[in-house]
């Protein structure tokens, strides 16, 4: 066991060092990398223009016509079905832009001009509300219009490229694929396109689109005072300023961020190491009924978290059964959730209760997976049990679960359930914290209470973006070292 912890700490120290180095390197190289990025983008745009100018110059009439009328190139090569499809896209796009898109784009910039108002009936005070614009809908349809335009542009340029390709093929006299050939390929060579398409359409509609939408909200003043039906407006970077700037909420933001990181660190590593320890304990050779022991712990995974966490809250409350036992034993009951430090300790401990079974289960699986011949050959070499543990078991576990730790860390930064269901972010009224953030509030729980309790959508979105930035920086700094990114091809 000592050897285990010894090498464990050595590993952790190594990680920390690497992390620190990465951290410094990241910021040291930042200006240089940014410069590189800008240069690359500039170069890319230039090449892109040159390419389409070249295609136009070298193409025949069909190719040139396709710059104006989509599908011309295809018609010129007698690819009728394809030509019709391209043409239909162009016509539909024009139709959409005239009747809808233009208004939607305008709405995107104005976010609505006239809002719900009451129509008064002459001679009475009866009023009828008349629907006006809804800033949220203006924004939504604006985003959709922009996506449609982007999609159209992709199609437009693919139309040109396809025209030029077909032209080049016809010059060398190669046979062009028919529409049928194209369709057939979808289930063979291009089968992945079908699969990707199916899997991604939902992602685009229900993850990407809403996300773009909410990111944009961070640049508006959408809140309780500026509602969707009453109209909100663009405000630029004002919300970011009020969260991290010198005035306003920064006194709350940075302490909450600090606790979020501390929490993620504790939650991830404690869960992991104790889970590994538990797995090693259960998987000891001379322990009988390993499956039964494991089952005891696995039960907490199977029960929905909101149930088990609300249960824990009841159990640990000042008037819950545990404190009741303390009282009956003559002790002094305390409200553990009332003090910042005890509340923090509790969320970490309860998180262990929830999380250890996961890492135990995973480690158990790995322990069973370690190839027996590794041990066999080690035994032949005369290695003792301890050496085998240090040289085989431990590195194997570490290697396999490295990437798991990163995802766990990100997951814990966004770990809403534990905090929200146990403490709701409280205790509130902590020194320095304001605007609904409490002693155990994470960025996400703060975000949630901003959305639901105070309808401060603009700050909630801003907070969401900042949470993302934190996660992104953390994973950027660690990802380079995870085996997953490097060894992708090794196993096939």
């Amino acid at each position, binding site marked *: 066991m000592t050897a285990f912890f010894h090498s464990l700490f050595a590993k952790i120290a190594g990680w920390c060092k690497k992390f620190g180095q990465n951290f410094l390197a990241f910021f040291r190289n930042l200006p240089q990398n940014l410069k590189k990025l800008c240069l690359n983008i500039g170069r890319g745009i230039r090449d892109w223009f040159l390419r389409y100018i070249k295609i136009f110059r070298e193409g025949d009439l069909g190719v040139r016509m396709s710059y104006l009328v989509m599908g011309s190139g295809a018609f010129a090569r007698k690819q009728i079905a394809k030509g019709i499809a391209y043409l239909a896209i162009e016509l539909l796009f024009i139709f959409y832009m005239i009747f809808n898109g233009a208004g939607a784009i305008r709405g995107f910039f104005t976010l609505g001009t006239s809002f719900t108002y009451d129509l008064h009936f002459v001679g009475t005070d009866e009023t009828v509300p008349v629907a006006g614009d809804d800033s*949220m809908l203006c924004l*939504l349809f604006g985003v959709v219009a922009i996506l449609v335009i982007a999609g159209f542009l992709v199609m437009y340029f693919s139309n040109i490229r396809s025209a030029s390709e077909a032209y080049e093929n016809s010059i060398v006299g190669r046979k062009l694929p028919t529409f049928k050939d194209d369709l057939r390929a979808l*289930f*063979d060579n291009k*089968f*992945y396109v*079908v*699969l990707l398409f*199916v*899997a*991604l359409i*939902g*992602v685009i*509609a*229900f*993850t990407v689109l*809403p*996300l773009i*939408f*909410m990111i944009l*909200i961070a640049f508006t003043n959408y809140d309780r005072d500026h509602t969707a039906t009453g109209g909100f407006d663009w405000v630029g970077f004002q919300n970011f300023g009020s969260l991290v700037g010198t005035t306003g909420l920064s006194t709350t933001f940075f302490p909450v961020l600090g606790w979020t990181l501390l929490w993620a660190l504790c939650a991830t590593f404690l869960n992991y190491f104790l889970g590994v320890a538990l797995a090693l*304990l*259960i998987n000891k050779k001379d*322990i009988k009924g390993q499956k039964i*022991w494991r*089952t*005891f712990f696995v*039960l907490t*995974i*199977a*029960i*929905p978290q*909101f*149930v088990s966490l*609300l*249960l*824990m809250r009841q159990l640990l409350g000042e008037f*819950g*059964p545990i404190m009741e036992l303390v009282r009956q034993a003559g002790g002094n009951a305390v409200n553990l959730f009332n003090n910042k430090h005890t509340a923090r300790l509790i969320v970490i401990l309860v998180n262990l*209760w929830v999380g250890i*079974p996961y890492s135990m*289960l995973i480690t*158990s*699986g790995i322990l069973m997976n370690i190839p027996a011949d590794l041990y066999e050959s080690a035994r032949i070499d005369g290695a003792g049990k301890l050496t085998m543990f240090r040289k085989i078991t431990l590195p194997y576990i570490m290697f*396999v679960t490295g*990437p798991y730790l990163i995802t766990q860390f990100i997951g814990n930064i*966004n770990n809403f359930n534990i905090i929200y269901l146990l403490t709701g972010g409280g205790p509130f009224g902590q020194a320095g914290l304001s605007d609904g953030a409490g002693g155990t509030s994470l*960025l996400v729980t703060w*975000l*949630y209470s901003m*959305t639901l309790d105070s309808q401060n*959508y603009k700050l909630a*979105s801003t907070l969401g973006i900042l*949470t*993302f930035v934190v*996660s*992104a920086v953390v*994973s950027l700094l660690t990802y380079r070292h995870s*085996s997953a990114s490097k060894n992708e091809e090794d*196993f096939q």
Partner: protein
Amino acid sequence: MSQLVSTKKTSSIKRKKAISKTTAYTALTVLSIIWIIPLIWMIIQSFAGPEGSKGKLFPTSFSFHWYAELFTNETYPFWRWFLNTLVIALICLVLSTFFTIAMAYVMSRYRFKGRKKLQSLGMILGMFPGFMSMAAIYYIFKSLGMAGDVAWWKMLIALILVYSGSAGLNYYVSKGFFDTVSKSLDEAARIDGATNSQVFFKVILPLSKPIIVYTALMSFLGPWGDFIFSSYLLGNETAAWTVAVGLYRMITKDPELYYNTFMAGAVIVAVPITALFLGLQRFFVEGITGGAVKG
């Protein structure tokens, strides 16, 4: 002499072993108790007598009163929520599993332009707090006529789309599994004249039972635990609620009235899920470690 020393040694080793064994068993017992007690407590509370047991260590009497209450309460139609959730979970199981497996297979087997970009995009999307876009999703469904003042079943379809729509992003674990399936199998089938779609459906899928079961299990469990998206999308339409929304509302809005009902509901939700989970535990372990091993 030397023999004496050696027996001493073996007996001391034996003693050491016995001690370590006892310690291990004691530790395991204590830990198991800590892990199990809250659950047992929940079960006991659910069988409390009609006078309830909130704020008490143990109920003073036992009955099935709260289970009866759970299924007869008209304000909170639990059996409906249970059916809603079951249907949603089953449909999600099919859709999400397919999306996830399809994405994972593509990411594992094909090398195409933009693949790396797609992977990092997936990672980036995963780093935003999920419910940040709750309000946006509501508006999207509202403009599609599937949220707000609409029939309850439309809301449920919306919920299914939310749950399964983003399933394609959770492909990491399954991709790890496919990475371990040897590519030579594909090649052999290709030589026999199979198309890629046939390879996928007839060769790879039948081999991937553990990961399919794992993915299906995860997709099935999701809807039982989510109360954030569902309560935002479903509003006050009690007929459309899922068990998570309903039970959460019971215990947070009026714990005095619904404390034991909540416990009974929690037990009813937990029992089948636990059974399912324990039955399929092997796949869970295989799935997640298979993925983790090969990153």
